[in-house]
């Protein structure tokens, strides 16, 4: 028995080495390739729908009766915010787990496949009623708007599929820790652990919400508590957004330094950023409910504070990134107060795309602080400003980082190489996307300040003067959207070219090392159980007061409505 265990330990060590030298195993590669393919098909479809919306909002396109604006909007939101992001994140982190932990365990790989098909099945279930105009409730599906029950059952399967992947990741990490006593989880797997912890705990509230909606949508119970449903939704929705952000951040900390030929920033501080983002995340959900009734002023004030606390690790990140850039550039002979920037590899799409993504987070983060402020929120709430904001954060900071990742991750899992032509195409794509998003999101922010509402198909409100004054901006929105659609086409082409047609060869998985003189990281950073408990306590602090109030002082509740 002893020897068997020791032997299997040895084969494992051997496999880990082989994995590092020879690249990812074919089975693990197939998993990631499938996830990434779905992600990029989602952006293709979602982008097309986005363009339809943009053209409609500018008054240039009338949608046919069998496909109305709200169907398109529901599908656009779901495809991009749920499908693209979830599939990319899982594909990327599973490749990372496979690379840094010596391959996925067979059991874990199977779980990830089951999760894959559950999500696809759930998505198909959700799309059918959307196409039939039975679920035009937008991706937030706020009650009392009620969709066909099939829509919610689809969502349940998506959540279950995500949980499969989260548990798979936990099992793989735990098994690695047992085999490597006394060692720190490799940094990329540390990020993955944080992301899957958030995916699991963040989707618990929405699971509860959906389980209360389903009987109501079937008509088995008559009414629903609207405020509780909204609160549960945003505990999830906000966390989800931050999960994509944390995924992008992982590439900024771990991958980008390697690509520019440098080393990572402090290992300890990086891990602290992860822990802080995991602990403080879920409570941020309330900043989506600043205008909601039923929450008292002091409680809203506490929530603003809890929300802005997330700004702190974000500022640490900004500092860390520029510190790494400057250090690396100076090592390469960069000079002057700012002249060192010339030494960075601007022509390399794997750097350029995530760099612009990071830069975009500066205005995006500033906009976020604006929105979290109670008074300013009243100005921008439910206007196009919000749409501009999340196209900057998600559509630029996160998605452009994903694009940058795709130029090495796809060749890595396909055992091919990034050709200079595709690199150049990628640089062009990055520039088009940047210009398109700056125009579109700029126009959205501005027209939002002038009062143009979000989630509203084109209307001149009986030629009202204010509404007519929005037109020039909405026209810019359409121009930006068109550029973005070109960007989507190039990006999707690049991904599938790299996956199936690029020259064969070995591509490295770029994980940066820590500085040579780095201090060892203390052991307490590995106590995930403790971080989870702290997270639960914070969640309790944020949610107990309003939830008890909503439930104990509940109004009669609402029957389902079909408003479209």
């Amino acid at each position, binding site marked *: 028995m002893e020897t068997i265990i020791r032997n299997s330990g040895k084969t494992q060590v051997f496999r880990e080495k082989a994995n590092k030298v020879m690249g990812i195993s074919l089975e693990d590669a197939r998993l990631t390739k499938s996830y990434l393919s779905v992600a990029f098909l989602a952006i293709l479809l979602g982008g097309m729908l986005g363009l339809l919306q943009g053209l409609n909002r500018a008054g240039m396109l009338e949608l046919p009766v069998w496909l109305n604006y709200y169907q398109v909007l529901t599908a656009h939101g779901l495809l991009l915010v749920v499908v693209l992001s979830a599939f990319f994140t899982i594909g990327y982190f599973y490749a990372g787990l496979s690379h840094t932990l010596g391959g996925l365990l067979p059991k874990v790989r199977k779980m990830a496949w089951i999760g894959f098909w559950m999500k696809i099945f759930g998505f198909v279930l959700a799309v059918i009623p959307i196409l039939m105009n039975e679920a035009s409730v937008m991706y937030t599906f706020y009650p009392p708007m009620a969709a066909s029950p099939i829509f919610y059952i689809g969502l349940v399967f998506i959540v279950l599929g995500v949980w499969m992947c989260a548990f798979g990741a936990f099992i793989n990490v735990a098994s690695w820790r047992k085999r490597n006593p006394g060692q720190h989880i490799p940094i990329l797997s540390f990020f993955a652990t944080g992301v899957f912890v958030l995916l699991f705990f963040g989707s618990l509230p929405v699971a509860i919400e959906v389980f209360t909606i389903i009987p109501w949508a079937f008509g088995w119970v008559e009414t629903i508590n609207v405020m509780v449903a909204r609160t549960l939704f945003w505990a999830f929705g906000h966390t989800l957004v931050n999960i994509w952000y944390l995924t992008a951040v992982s590439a900024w900390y771990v991958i980008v330094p390697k690509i520019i030929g440098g080393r990572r920033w402090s290992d300890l501080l990086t891990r602290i950023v992860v822990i802080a983002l995991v602990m403080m995340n879920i409570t941020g959900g309330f900043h989506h409910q600043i205008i909601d009734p039923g929450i008292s002023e002091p409680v809203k004030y506490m929530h603003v504070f809890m929300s802005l606390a997330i700004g702190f690790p974000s500022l640490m990140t900004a500092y860390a990134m520029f510190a790494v850039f400057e250090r690396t550039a100076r090592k390469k002979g960069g000079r002057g107060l700012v002249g060192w920037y010339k030494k960075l590899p601007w022509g390399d799409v794997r750097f350029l795309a995530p760099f612009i993504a990071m830069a975009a987070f500066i205005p995006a983060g500033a906009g976020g602080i604006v929105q979290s402020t109670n008074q300013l929120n009243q100005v921008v709430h439910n206007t196009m400003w919000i749409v501009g904001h999340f196209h900057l954060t998600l559509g630029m900071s996160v998605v452009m980082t994903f694009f940058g990742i795709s130029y090495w991750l796809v060749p890595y899992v396909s055992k091919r190489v990034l050709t200079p032509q595709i690199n150049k195409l990628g640089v062009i794509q990055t520039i088009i996307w940047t210009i398109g998003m700056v125009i579109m999101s700029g126009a959205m922010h501005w027209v939002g300040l002038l009062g143009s509402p979000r989630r509203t198909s084109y209307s001149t409100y009986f030629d009202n003067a204010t509404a007519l004054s929005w037109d020039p901006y909405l026209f810019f929105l359409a121009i930006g959207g068109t550029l973005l659609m070109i960007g989507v086409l190039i990006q999707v082409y690049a991904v599938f070219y790299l996956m199936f047609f690029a020259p064969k060869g070995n591509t490295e998985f770029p994980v940066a090392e820590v500085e040579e003189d780095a201090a060892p990281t203390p052991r307490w950073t590995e106590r995930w159980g403790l971080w*989870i*408990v702290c997270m639960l306590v914070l969640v309790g602090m944020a949610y107990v007061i309003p939830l008890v109030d909503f439930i104990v002082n509940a109004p009669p509740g609402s029957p389902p409505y079909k408003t479209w």
Partner: protein
Amino acid sequence: MKQSGYGFLLLLALMLPPVSNLLESIMITHMHMQMPMLVFAGFLMAKFFQKRFPQFFEKWNENGLPGILLFTIIMVYWSLPRTMDEALTMTSVEAFKFFSLPFLAGVPLRDSWRKLSSSWKHALIIFFTVLFLGMGWLYIWSPVQLCNNYLVIEQITLGWGFITTAFAMVVYLVYSYFMDFSKYE
């Protein structure tokens, strides 16, 4: 030593009338925010006392049990509805709160925690879990208003605050029961 300074600052900040009025205006922030922060202030200041009076702690708190007993008594005392009410109406009780929580609970907690064996630590957490479940039950299902100063809805909220905190402690206990840290080190 810097730490002790911060602890002292925290205590002063919590004593500022606008801060204490705000925190005491809501039942749950009174008990679950102000009081733990007072303990935490004492926890930070403990370093100062440990350095100044090493023999005292050595002599009176050799194995950590007297200290943790004192901590527990103070904590239980401040979980009573009646004491909270009195703190709001009588200045002397309010003063005792600002003294006892940092110095009679926070300081001994810091000094004792390291000295306790892990089974004592777990016993303590289990004790507080049970206490919190009991308090939660009392506050949620009590048929009457327990405090003169707080409405029934606030009392129910605090009850759920106790239950969620107890839940978090249960998660921690389960985690440390199933996790064998020696395997990873």
